[in-house]
């Protein structure tokens, strides 16, 4: 089932703007390899689910996939062929607001070649450019 919050303060939100780069959630924290966004944008719950399915199917019960983003922003849409006005449309889907540099997915427990191939499949499901990054160890 698609990801969405259990409880919200407001049913609908304004669209907002995405400015700057990610200063949080921009390092690989759980797995050994990560998929980092190279652009900013909205990542819908459907995109996240498609990415998760693509990775887990490729890994075929090997390793582990971590999802690092959560869609907590509702987006609305007016019905087709409706005149303008009469208030804001109904909630259509939930999205995660992604700034460039955010780690979207992580993979652990597999070698680099496998992770790269899995991320290639995930990348094709993403609505913006992404790149694979490695974990940076502490000093």
């Amino acid at each position, binding site marked *: 089932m698609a990801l969405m919050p259990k409880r919200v303060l407001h049913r609908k939100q304004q669209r907002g703007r995405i400015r700057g780069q990610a200063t949080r959630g921009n390092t690989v924290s759980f797995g050994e390899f990560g998929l980092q966004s190279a652009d900013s944008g909205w990542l819908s719950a459907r995109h996240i689910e498609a990415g998760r399915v693509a990775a*887990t199917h490729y890994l075929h*019960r090997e390793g582990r996939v971590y999802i690092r983003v959560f869609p907590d922003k509702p987006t609305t849409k007016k019905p087709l062929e409706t005149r303008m006005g009469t208030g804001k449309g109904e909630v259509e889907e939930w999205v995660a607001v992604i700034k460039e540099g955010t780690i979207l997915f992580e993979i652990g427990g597999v070698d680099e070649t496998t992770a790269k191939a899995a991320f290639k499949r995930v990348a094709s499901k993403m609505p913006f450019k992404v790149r694979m990054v490695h974990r*940076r*160890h502490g000093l």
Partner: protein
Amino acid sequence: MQTLKAVAREGRGSRLSRHLRQKGMVPAIIYGHKVEPRAVALGGHDLELALHASRLLALDVEGHTENVLIKDVQYDAFGTKLLHVDFARVNLDERVSVTVPIILRGKPTEVGAVLTQVTNDLEIECLVTSIPDEIRIPVGEMKIGDVIKAKDVPLPQGAALLVEEDVLICTVSVVAEEAEAPAAEAGAAEPEVIGEKKEEAEEEEAK
């Protein structure tokens, strides 16, 4: 031990640091041993190569050489560009606490076994001249249900563990069956709106 040339920095602040980076230099600081901290700048390319080679460096700051340990490295939002480096002054006979990456070698051979690495770095105390690049743990022999704790990790000679002995390093477990997604998304149930029910209840009470 690699020697890097550094120049003393006169000014401080983000603006001057940005100008330095535009020239291909990386701002850095040397501190420790109860001596006044010294702001320096190093060539970005040489420093990048040195960071991959060793943690212990000799810094030649305008003729005066100091042995330093890389303490912290800051990168930009993408984790690609070097922004700043912290160096700590060390004596070569000093014991230091460092974080060393744990590398798991091999794969559990049992069918359906999944290896999960819980801890990726281990804090140890050792001589500054014998800091290991990584700690390798063979996991090929592990069976389902086996765990490796910090006390089981083979440490280099003279090194001491600085974390609790019971800290979990890795586990081998069975793959959890993926839950079947519901056929239709059941009208994609809406989340509960905080405070909405309360208002309705109050209205009813008022009536």
